[in-house]
């Protein structure tokens, strides 16, 4: 069974925000909610790096550990999803997540915090695959359509890789060998765990 993973190649990102736009368009995400966003480190300084951040679908997800109503679940493909019918919008997950993935809509009355929203790896939610109910709550279910996440497929420089962990790791490894640098995979250690000396940084 495939184990879905994101890999971010910081050597290739040119901060076009195409991934952000693709995600918002594909899932019709409301204003103020960004399931994916591009963060630039050392902005304006020569050698700045841009990183596209979303839910990394961690192997040992902190959000799942802290959720008081147990609304999270992990699919057989390793995608961390949640049930909005169970979520109470407490926000514990947003404090626990090292990537700032959980988002909360702010258009409620008096700024009340609504149900949590986050990247689904384009895998929808617990509703029937491809149903209108699933789309309204979680967006499109591209995995069930035989496609990969829109952000990665739309990335113009292919800095963002998404798909079966073995395949995307192989693509990334090949790039590193070809260019001879940039072996650091941002967020990999935090999300999936890394043994010391493997070269990945958190």
């Amino acid at each position: 069974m495939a184990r879905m993973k994101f890999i971010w190649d910081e050597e290739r990102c040119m901060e076009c925000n195409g991934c952000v736009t693709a995600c918002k368009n594909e899932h019709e995400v409301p204003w103020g909610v960004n399931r994916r966003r591009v963060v630039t480190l050392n902005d304006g300084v020569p050698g700045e790096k841009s990183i596209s951040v979303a839910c990394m679908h961690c192997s040992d997800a902190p959000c799942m550990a802290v959720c008081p109503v147990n609304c999270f679940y992990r699919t057989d493909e390793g995608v961390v999803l949640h049930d909005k019918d169970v979520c109470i919008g407490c926000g514990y997950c947003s404090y626990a997540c090292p990537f700032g993935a959980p988002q909360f809509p702010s258009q409620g009355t008096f700024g009340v915090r609504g149900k949590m929203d986050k990247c689904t790896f384009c895998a929808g939610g617990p509703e029937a695959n491809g149903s209108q109910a699933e789309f309204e709550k979680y967006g499109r279910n591209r995995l069930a359509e035989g496609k990969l996440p829109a952000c990665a497929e739309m990335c113009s420089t292919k800095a963002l890789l998404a798909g079966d962990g073995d395949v995307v790791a192989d693509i990334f490894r090949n790039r590193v060998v070809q260019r001879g640098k940039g072996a650091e995979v941002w967020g990999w250690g935090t999300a999936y765990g890394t043994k010391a000396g493997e070269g990945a940084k958190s």
Partner: protein
Amino acid sequence: MKRTALRWATGVIALGLAAGLAACGEKPQVLTGVPKSDTAPYTGTGVSAFTAPGWQAGDATSWNSQLKARAQYGMNDHTRSP
């Protein structure tokens, strides 16, 4: 006779008290309906217009191969340029 009536009255009062106390009990607060599984994506959406061609819905092996191939030709630009 008087003793039997007294026993009956005591029994009725005891039952009433027991019923009253039962009303003070907590409702079960166990979460039900929390999904621990989702319909597997390889089952497809049933909407052919949006489904990528080249794989068979319901066949996990076919779906896996489709996603692996899609990642290769969509993201591995080293296979397209020397």
